[in-house]
């Protein structure tokens, strides 16, 4: 372990802001990207089912 | 039909079309001059500052003027149906397109290259850099026209395709811009600039060889239906 204490780990030898900013934005954008795609999958499925229902009623 | 005859035939047609509505092809020259003066007004009349940025400013505005000129290259042909006849011709499509793009490149590059020395004067460009500036414009702008033709062919179906053309094509313009401005800046400092012009010439040859293929593929797209 490079850091002896939890505070040292967060402070990252003074560069904590930049390291956590980079990693934070990276994790956030990956998670956001995944969420967007999952929501897109759900809306596509909903539209398709709706289309099938309309077709079956006609 | 032998190629030289085909070239002469295409040249004569493009020459007539350009000459008969010369005012629309001169718009790119007015644009070039006006935006240069805008830059001078924006940056201020300090001669020393202007001289330093003159090559960059002149070339970037020439690039934008070329892009605006290239935007409507195929649109009129598409709307009045003559683009279909181009694609259905029995002449080899590669040379037909190549000669067309070559003549358009000459008709767009010449006016801008002729005006550039006066703009160099306007922006206090060192005297020895004027000739390399004109040479770099004569070598660089045809490359921009050839690359822009690909974008124009892709966006021929859209009325306001100009903005989309910029988004598609500007990244591809960057190498030409880099080599051309480097040539003019080297000349302004009095150092050798022939290497930069040689690189520009290679880009021109590469574009001449490959662009017609891409333009043909892109044009045939618009007749997908």
């Amino acid at each position, binding site marked *: 372990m490079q850091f002896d204490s939890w505070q040292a780990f967060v402070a990252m030898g003074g560069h904590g802001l930049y390291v956590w900013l980079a990693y934070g934005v990276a994790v956030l954008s990956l998670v956001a990207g995944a969420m967007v795609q999952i929501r897109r999958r759900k809306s596509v499925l909903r539209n398709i089912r709706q289309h099938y229902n309309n077709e079956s009623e006609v | 039909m032998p190629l030289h005859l085909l070239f002469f035939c295409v040249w004569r047609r493009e020459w007539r079309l350009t000459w008969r509505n010369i005012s629309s092809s001169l718009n790119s020259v007015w644009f070039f001059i006006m935006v240069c003066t805008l830059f001078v007004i924006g940056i201020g009349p300090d001669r020393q500052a202007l001289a330093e940025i003159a090559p960059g400013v002149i070339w970037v505005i020439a690039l934008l003027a070329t892009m605006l000129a290239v935007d409507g290259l195929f649109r009129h042909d598409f709307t009045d149906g003559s683009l279909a006849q181009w694609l259905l011709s029995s002449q080899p499509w590669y040379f037909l397109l190549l000669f067309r793009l070559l003549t358009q490149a000459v008709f767009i590059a010449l006016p801008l290259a002729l005006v550039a020395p006066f703009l160099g004067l306007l922006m206090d460009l060192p005297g020895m850099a004027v000739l390399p500036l004109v040479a770099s414009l004569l070598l660089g702008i045809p490359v921009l026209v050839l690359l822009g033709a690909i974008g124009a062919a892709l966006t021929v179906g859209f009325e306001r395709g100009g903005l989309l053309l910029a*988004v598609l094509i500007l990244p591809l313009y960057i190498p030409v811009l880099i080599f051309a401005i480097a040539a003019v800046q080297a000349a302004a400092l009095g150092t050798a600039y022939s290497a930069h012009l040689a690189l520009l010439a290679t880009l021109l040859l590469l574009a001449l060889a490959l662009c017609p293929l891409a333009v043909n593929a892109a044009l045939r797209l618009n007749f997908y239906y």
Partner: protein
Amino acid sequence: MWAWFHKLGSPRWFYRISDLCLPWLTVAGLLFLVVGVVWGLLFAPPDYKQGNSFRIFYLHVPTAVIALVGYYVMAIAGAVSLIWKMKLADIVMKEAAVIGALLTFLALFTGAVWGKPTWGTWWVWDARVTSMLILLFLYIGVIALNNAFTHPEQSGKACAVLSLVGTVNIPIIYKSVDWWYSLHQPATIKFTERSTIHPDMFWPFVVITVGFYVLYAVALMFNTQTAILEREYRTQWVRDKVQQ
């Protein structure tokens, strides 16, 4: 061989295959990523000059590498869809463009954040970062062109042509930007070319890169599946799958 190749192209076959391996790949990818990040953040030694801010290297370089590889994946998919008129390749290309653009943005952002402690400015016009910015513009160009068309087949072919033209231009752009950078900047340190890298720093980088590659494949497959459902909703196999 030919039949196999066209079988590969059928969306239904692709959907079944990707359904099988998606869960495994996601788990493997996340595992690699977490192990790599923990290793890089906690156990790898700090850089003697840059200190701990060097740890952003483990994020910036993998995303940059995969962003560039992603462009070639997109161009190859475009070429396949143009030459063999394969609908699946057309969908893969469009999804690869979106993922690639996200990765390029990520690479640029981490690069900028990394530049602040090391050079004191948020944006440094280094050759590598500048060509990464142009790569982002190329991605944006393909996405803009894709959204401009109404018919999916037509936009597929147009994007294929543009991505192929982009691929021919990427080496030229990279070389000319390097040349431009060395022209204006006397040879200062290269941004990411770490000639000799300490093995302790190298292994977490490899693990993270593998993690990113696997997750790129997972994202591409998942998005392609969604696009297949969207486009093929009239076929019977989609109907059965959706109404299960």
